């Protein structure tokens, strides 16, 4: 029973279900919350869940990091795929760039209107 817990298929199932639940929580939060701050927090969670899913699905039990060290002396197929890691590394930096820009807009908007709720943002529309 316990030994099956350490098999790759079980791990992949856990990763799939877990990270997609996280994605759901993030998307639901972003769609239903009214506070701008909470919306961007939820979007950050949704993105993080994708990162976890992508890295996790390329991990198999027994595979090592794609780095040559004293213990691992040669590149081989017993290493995890480096491309998803590079992609996620890139995406994490993009995510923080977008997030900080968004938050600076939120600060500026709040200082002008004293409002943080998306359903009260009524500056735009017909006849405004």
């Amino acid at each position, binding site marked *: 029973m316990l030994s099956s817990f350490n098999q790759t298929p079980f791990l992949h*199932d856990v990763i*799939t*279900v877990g990270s*997609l*639940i996280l*994605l*759901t929580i993030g*998307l*639901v939060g972003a*769609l*239903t919350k009214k506070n701008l701050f909470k919306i961007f927090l939820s979007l950050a969670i949704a993105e993080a869940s994708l990162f976890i899913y992508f890295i996790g*699905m*390329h991990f198999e039990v027994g595979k090592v*990091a*794609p*780095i*040559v*060290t004293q213990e691992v002396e*040669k*590149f*081989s*197929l017993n*290493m995890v*795929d*480096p*491309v*998803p*890691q*590079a*992609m996620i*590394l*890139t995406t994490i*930096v*993009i995510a923080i*760039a*977008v997030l*900080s*820009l968004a*938050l*600076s*807009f939120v*600060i*500026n908007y709040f*200082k*002008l209107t004293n409002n943080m709720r998306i359903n009260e943002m009524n500056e735009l529309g017909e006849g405004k």
Partner: protein
Amino acid sequence: MINIKKDISIETLVVSLLVSVMTIMLISLFLNFNEVSSSIGTEILLINEASTGTANAVTSVVTYFRGFDTLGEVTILFLSIFGISLGLEGYKDKLNIFAYENQLLKTAVDTLFPLIILFGFYVIIHGHLSPGGGFQGGVIIASAFLLMFLAKNDDFALNHKIMGLIEALSGASFILIGLLGLLIVNRFFDNFLPLGTLGNLFSGGVIPLIYIFVGLKVSAEITALVEYFVRIKDVE
């Protein structure tokens, strides 16, 4: 802590239901598909040592095989910080938001600051040998400056001219390395330096060079970002 009555409205219910259905479909789909045995990643692992000479395959993907993505990523950071700075130009009276006096922190930071910077540079220049690299090291350097902002309040100010210069020059040199590759080896970002021995500090051709420029640019940009966020004050 959680006020159930206030939180749940019809809209919330509908949206949650829709997204949950989507997720259940996604899960059922993702749970039974067959993973491919060979991908570009596995091929890169096999040729990495011969073609790049770096000990860290992730670094060689980030800076060599997918170097253009990294250029785009640095651009995105640059743009985002530029956007933040545009929004704050109108505000006068830029003071540090942390009105906080702590003698212990002030004394400790004098010792810690150079050490953190040194560690950041270590992470940057060993990017092709161990985990880490330009982005991580750059942010570590920026965190040293964050500590300075925390401890020294308004006594510590950045020289914007030098910061802008570092940012512009490191970004431009990043592209120029690519263009040099185009002129010398006829391919953008290709290697025009000797590869060296795997595992040595001086190895991997242009890869450490690219990571050093990325590190400089990222550290300058994240420091600017932190400074902007820390110093926004009200419009009077």
